[in-house]
């Protein structure tokens, strides 16, 4: 359950840590109207997330409207305005651009609507002015770090050919996305922090797309051949595409190449189980959705958040062949 009273006590955690905020159950009778703004509907992960969110809210008797921002902040702002005009009781917002958060906070504050930001974290500075808003989400840097750790946990720590350095290719998501940025950065950082030497053979933009993942990986394997030891992919879709390229190139995951993704898509879990993928990182949509709803109910019940305490984190989870069974439905 999510904070009671004006001051919740958790401090913003370090990237790898997390804090679960305890508090009293909300006393607001369910049945209000909730507007949910998703940055983009055809995003794989956010689809899982919003499905969970919708289910929880409906089960609790809320009237929910979910809208698709189409990756367009202007459009999302319009949708928020329409929700305000409609007079919703609370908003759950997955902002298109965190940099626009201050404008959004302005809008909801003027209309005095309790708001939970999810998935993309606004700066503390932006949220500070409105004590009825809170962020619930994961720290993207953590997922990157976990990717790196998955490689470190392998037998050769990523240096399959034993030349003293990990040679990798990076398949990047849409680089504007904060997840893409932080995963790209922190997956490698985990290796260097552990004292490994690294060599980036190539970094290519795959826009989260499976087919692009396949083509990029196929081209890189053609160019660099056995030099490629690790394939870092910012998400599972691209990793699954890359996996096809790896198979076609006659390489064997776990033996002469490693590949990691993020998201724990069904197909990826299957691949991890079959040993075709080294590992993936679970972005725990269900827990995040539950937490978001809790916080929303808290806000409706009168909870407020003090400056600097408006971010609540849920952990990512590493998935390897050892624990993959727990996650397969």
């Amino acid at each position, binding site marked *: 359950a999510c904070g009671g009273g004006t001051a919740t006590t958790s401090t913003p955690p370090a990237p790898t840590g997390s804090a679960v905020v305890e508090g009293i159950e909300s006393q607001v009778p369910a049945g209000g109207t909730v507007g949910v703004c998703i940055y983009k509907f055809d995003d794989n992960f956010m689809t899982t997330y919003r499905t969970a969110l919708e289910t929880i809210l409906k089960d609790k008797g809320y009237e929910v409207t979910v809208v698709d921002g189409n990756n367009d902040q202007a459009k999302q702002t319009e949708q928020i305005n329409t929700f305000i005009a409609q007079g919703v009781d609370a908003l759950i917002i997955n902002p298109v*651009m965190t940099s626009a*958060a*201050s404008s959004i906070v302005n809008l909801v504050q003027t209309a005095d609507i309790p708001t939970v930001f999810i998935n993309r974290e606004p700066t503390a500075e932006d949220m500070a002015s409105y004590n009825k808003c809170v962020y619930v989400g994961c720290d993207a840097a953590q997922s990157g770090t976990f990717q790196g750790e998955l490689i470190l946990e392998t037998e050769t720590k990523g240096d399959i050919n034993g030349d003293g350095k990990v040679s990798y290719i990076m398949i990047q998501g849409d680089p504007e996305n904060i997840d893409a940025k932080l995963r790209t950065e922190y997956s490698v950082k985990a290796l260097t922090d552990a004292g490994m030497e690294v060599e980036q053979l190539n970094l290519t933009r795959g826009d989260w797309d499976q087919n692009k993942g396949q083509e990029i990986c196929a081209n890189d394997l053609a160019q660099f051949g056995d030099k490629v030891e690790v394939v870092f992919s910012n998400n599972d879709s691209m990793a699954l595409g890359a996996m096809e390229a790896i198979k076609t190139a006659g390489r064997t995951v776990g033996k002469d190449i490693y590949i990691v993704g993020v998201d724990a898509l069904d197909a990826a879990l299957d691949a991890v189980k079959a040993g075709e993928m080294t590992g993936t990182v679970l972005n725990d949509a269900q827990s995040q959705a539950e937490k978001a709803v809790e916080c929303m109910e808290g806000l409706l019940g009168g909870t407020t958040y003090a400056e600097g305490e408006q971010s609540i984190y849920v952990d990512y989870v590493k998935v390897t062949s050892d624990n993959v069974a727990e996650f397969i439905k």
Partner: protein
Amino acid sequence: MAKEAKQLNAARVKQFLSNYAIIILIALLALAVGFTRDNFFSRSNLVNLIINVSPRFIIACGVSGCLITKGTDLSAGRMVGLSACLSAMLLQDVAYSGRMLPWLPDVPVFVGLIAVLVICGIFGAINGCVIAFLKVPPFIATLGMQTIVYGLCSVITKNQPMGGYKDSYTKVANGYLLEGAVGKIIPYLAIIALIIGLFMWFLYNKTRHGKYMYAIGGNESAAQVAGVNVPATLIRIYLLAAVLYALGGFLLGAKAGGASVQTGYGYELEAIAACTIGGVSTNGGVGKISGVLVGVLVFEILKICLQFLRVDPAYTFIAQGLVIIVAVALDLRKYLAKK
């Protein structure tokens, strides 16, 4: 005689219905939503509508000139994005910690605006030159430009989303004339859109440039023979279009309070669809500013209605697609020479 008059009236009603069918349909939808949902007919919802329509109308005005000359401009959306990003870079609050250009002194809003208009205008002029002199079909020329502008925007912003605008910039989109006493009445955005609309109407109907534009759309080689400077006119059209996209992007950025390379994505298709719904013919030579406004209104009213009806977004796509097709199918009756 009497019989003929009656027939005429029946025919007129029929013609009226088919001319304005889509408007009538949307109006009916709006009425239905209004009577079944709370707050639909509210001042704030009306203001929302006006605010949503304004920048899109400006962008659609830009694209209309291209369409009237049988061209198109697929770079519109990305130019909107470029303009929003440039505006952001220039007009972030000097006190904001995440400034893109920390070395930049405080830039007055007006100067920022002029700068983005000029920069986008240059790209527009390039579009025009490629089309007029290199004879690259507009679809391809502007498709290439779309990709180039996106790449450039990606380079200059380093794919970083931007925010932290100074108040005087966001005010442009969020401010109202006559604020205070009587409440928020007339959004600045509406005034800007109105000025642009009037300007464009004047340009299209009362100036040589406008007549030349229609002439080129009607028959380019005949226009040339008649002494129209076709390349110059085309360049002016694409340049003006880009300036309008830039203005649209500037306002959109202010409205959203942030901008990134993604801003403006897909706006060109929406604008082209709106123009066509509003009766701008892709066969060239035909189209009015009032029609453009109608087209944009149809779209935006539809969007608001769907949100009020709480339609699942997947279905809103289907609804929007149908409206595009049906609107144009109904509208085209006007132009279909009777057989």
